[in-house]
Structure formats: C-alpha cells, structure tokens
C-alpha cells in the first residue's frame, strides 16, 4: 500500500518536474513552426530521460551513493571539477530562465513588467528552501503542477488530426528552414533530457533512504512519471500547431506571443490558465534546480547536506543555493530576454549532455557500485545513442542558428 502511494506521488512529482519553461517553450515553438513534425524529438528525449531517471534511482538505491558522490570518487577531483563547472554553469542559466518564467507569468497576471518580479520570485524560492522541508517542496510543487493538465485538456478540445500527430513520431526532413528545424530539435532534446532532473532524483532517493526494495517503485515512477510529463509537452506542441500555425504565427520570438496558446481554445479561462501553468511549473523547476546546484556542491565536497536540516546545520549547502538564486535573479534583472535565455540554455544543455551522461553511464556499469543491478546492454545502447545524437545535432545546429542562416 505504501509503495502504491509512493508511485502515485512520484508520478505526480514528475509531472511537476518534467514540465518547465524549457520543454514548454521549445514544444510550442516547434508546433508553431513545423506542426507535428518534431513530435519525434519529444518522444526520443523522453525515452532517454526515462532511462536516465530510472538509472539514477537504481544507482542511489543499490549503491547508496548519489551520482555526484560517485562521480568524484570514481573519476577523481580533477575530472569532477570539469563536470561540476560545466553542468553548474548550464544549470545557472536554466535557473535564470525558470525565474524569468515565473516573473513572466506574474507579468501576464498583473501587467507589471517582469524585471520587477525577478527579485520577489527569487526571494520566494529562497524562503521555501530556507524554511521548508524536502517532502513539502517536492509534494507541494508537484500537486500544484497538476494545473498544467489544462494543456492536455486544451489539446484534446482542439480535435487535432491524431493521425498526423502520430506520423510526427517518425523523424522526417523539413521543407526549408532546416537549420531552424534541427536547432529546435536540439533544444527539445536538451529540454527533455535536462540532467538536473536525474541528479535531483538521485539526491531525492538518498534523502528518502531508498534501498533495493524500491527498485520496482523506481521503475514505475520513472516510466510513468516522465511519460506523463511528455504528454503535457506534446499537448503544448499540438496546441501550438493548431492555434498558431494556421493563423500564420510560425515564428515565436517572445512570450507575449506564446501567452495566447490557450485563449482560442479555452476562451476567457485560457489566458489565466496558461499564466498559472507557466508560473507554477517554472516555480517548481526553480526550486528543484536551486536545490540541485546545492546538492551537487555539497556532495562533491563532502559537506553536510539535506533539505530537512536547518540552514545553520549545513551552512555550506544553504549558502550555495542562496548564491545560485542571486545569480539566477541577476540574469533576469539585467534584462536578458527570457525566451532567448531559455532556448539557448536548452540547446547548451544538449551540447553538454555527454559531459554529465557518459561518466554516469560508466558508473552504471561498474560492478563495485551496482553489483548484479548493473546496466543491461539495451539501456546503455539507448542512452548512448540518444546522447550522441543530441550532441552531434547541437554542435552542428547551434552555430548555424546563431549565424542566422536558414
């Protein structure tokens, strides 16, 4: 009974965790520009994420190590510091994007410019981390995250041509604008496979004291949870394809455009539901990313860590998330365009995936950590293939997109 409860809760948590500003805005851009043609990127990214999250949970349950702990132990401090710097840098950009997302939602709701919101939003996130417990944050953010299901409702009400949606599951070449097509594919992959999710998940499994009896729960949570998350991202894509494309809005340069996603379908409610979904999903993600940055520092350097400790008991941990939030808020306050920041940091995530994923795969195959629960060939092959693909696409398409060719 308890396990069933854990699964339900875990799945709900993942919905909140999966949908954040990155997967939402990349999916919407893809739908507007290429209709259902990029459905495959969402599916492929999700498949990879399911495998990675399952691995992160299995790793924690079997080896009793977090991924970060083991990265340093197994590969030494020098290698660890490269991964640490690289992944943390990208995470800070993503954190900025999420804070921007919450601020933007508040701008939509109140009409007050988003730059004014960055500081209060950062403070609210910080306050929850400072005072709250892990369970409260995890469960609270994810229950509220269920509001994002309104995107699914919207997509269904739109009566999209399901056959064409399904056809998008197979990759196809675009007619023209191919640089932009591949760049969007990369951003979607980066947004779906965001490494902060599986690092966070492994820290959570240690906080919840998982052992080998949790392996089944873990499998269910990662599979179902991430699939539900993908369902919401797909709904956003379908909505954009149905709402924006036919009206000639094929290029989305600003959230002022994206904000209209639900209005034609849900009417008066659409606008407010979209703002609420965006705000809540980004708030949850901001909490998770700030925490995850602190986890990684604490685990990498062997400090005390735990969201349930009081700040005075783990001052290093508390200082790191405080500092991370300051940086994230600054990124928004200096006026970086939140949509550009988001899309760019998602593409950068894809480009840096090998940095975080390949060492993790080595750990998953290490008998000393995993014993009989080592990775099978299938999981290795699937993850390696998708990560290599994302990396190659990122290296090719990011420069092209930045140079503005089409």
């Amino acid at each position, binding site marked *: 009974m308890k396990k069933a409860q854990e699964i339900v809760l875990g799945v709900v948590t993942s919905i909140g965790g999966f949908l954040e500003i990155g997967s939402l805005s990349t999916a919407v851009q893809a739908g507007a520009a290429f209709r259902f043609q990029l459905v495959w990127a969402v599916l492929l990214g999700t498949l990879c994420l399911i495998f990675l999250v399952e691995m992160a949970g299995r790793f924690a349950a079997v080896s009793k190590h977090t991924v970060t702990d083991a990265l340093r132990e197994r590969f030494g401090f020098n290698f660890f510091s490269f991964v640490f710097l690289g992944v943390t840098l990208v995470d800070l950009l993503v954190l900025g994007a999420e804070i921007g997302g919450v601020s933007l939602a508040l701008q939509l709701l109140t009409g007050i410019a988003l730059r004014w919101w960055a500081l209060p939003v950062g403070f609210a996130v910080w306050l929850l981390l400072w005072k709250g417990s892990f369970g409260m944050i995890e469960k609270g953010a994810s229950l509220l995250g269920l509001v994002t299901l309104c995107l699914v409702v919207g997509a269904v009400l739109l009566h999209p041509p399901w056959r064409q949606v399904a056809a998008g599951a197979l990759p196809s070449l675009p007619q023209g604008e191919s640089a932009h097509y591949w760049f969007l594919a990369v951003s979607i992959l980066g947004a779906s496979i965001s490494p902060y999710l599986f690092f966070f998940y492994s820290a959570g499994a240690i906080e919840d004291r998982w052992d080998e009896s949790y392996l089944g729960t873990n499998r269910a949570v990662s599979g179902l949870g991430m699939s539900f998350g993908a369902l919401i991202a797909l709904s956003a894509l379908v909505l954009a394809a149905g709402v924006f494309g036919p009206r000639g809005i094929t290029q989305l340069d600003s959230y002022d455009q994206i904000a209209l996603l639900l209005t034609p379908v849900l009417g008066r409610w659409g606008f407010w539901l979209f703002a609420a979904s965006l705000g809540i999903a980004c708030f949850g993600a901001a909490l998770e990313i700030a925490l995850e940055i602190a986890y990684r520092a604490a685990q990498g350097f*062997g*400090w005390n860590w735990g969201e349930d400790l009081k700040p005075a008991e783990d001052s290093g941990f508390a200082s790191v998330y405080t500092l991370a939030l300051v940086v994230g808020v600054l990124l928004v306050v200096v006026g970086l365009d939140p949509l550009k920041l988001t899309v760019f940091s998602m593409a950068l995530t894809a480009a840096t995936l090998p940095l975080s994923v390949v060492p993790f795969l080595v750990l998953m195959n290490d008998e000393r950590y995993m014993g009989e629960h080592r990775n099978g060939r299938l999981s290795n092959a699937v993850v390696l293939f998708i990560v290599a693909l994302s990396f190659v696409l990122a290296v090719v398409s990011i420069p092209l997109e930045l140079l503005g060719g089409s």
Partner: protein
Amino acid sequence: MDLIRDVLDKQLVDPEERRMGKVDGLILELEEGQPPRLVEIEQGAATLARRLHPRLARWVEALGARIYGEAPGGPARIPWSKVRDVGIDVEVDQDFEKSRLYFWQEWLCEKLIRRIPGAG
C-alpha cells in the same frame, strides 16, 4: 587496498556518521629501502587546488589567509592510524567538531547564515 581507487576522494565520516568532507589528498612517507607508507589524509581547498595546478593552490592559500585572518596554518591532516573503516565512506576516529570542514562551516554560519532570520 588500492589507495587511489578505494580511499582518495571518498566521503569522510566521523564515528557518528556525520559528513566531514572528502579525502582530498594522501600523504605518503618515503624511506630508502622501504615501500612508501601512507601516513596521513589531507583535506582542504588548497589541497584540491594543488591537484589542478600548483599556482592555483598558492592563490587559494593566499585567499584563505585573507578571508579567515588567523586561520589554522596549512591543510588539515588526519593521521592514517585514526582510520577505522574503509567502505562506502571512510570512517575516522575524530569528531566532526575538530574537522576543517566544521571550522569553516561555523565561520560561514557566524558571518552569514545566522545573520539571516530563521537559520535555526
């Protein structure tokens, strides 16, 4: 035991399982005609920095002296004889309160964290 594989970069815990940093460095003693002998575990930012680059280490040391003022000199060392167990973590017979990590966490706590309400 393989020192690099089994000891270096592992989590150090005190007898009450409190985390007290990682094994940042190992000190070996070389005597002529004898195999090298492990004598101490070393900890600290300067030790880590030295592994990346010696100049970085000098820079970190200078920075540390500036921030802490009268800091305990040199990197923290724990005699190998105090090591009780090497498993997932390395357990040593020394209280967390005597560790370098405790020193700077308290410092940070005093200078920053406790000044913010609700630190507990």
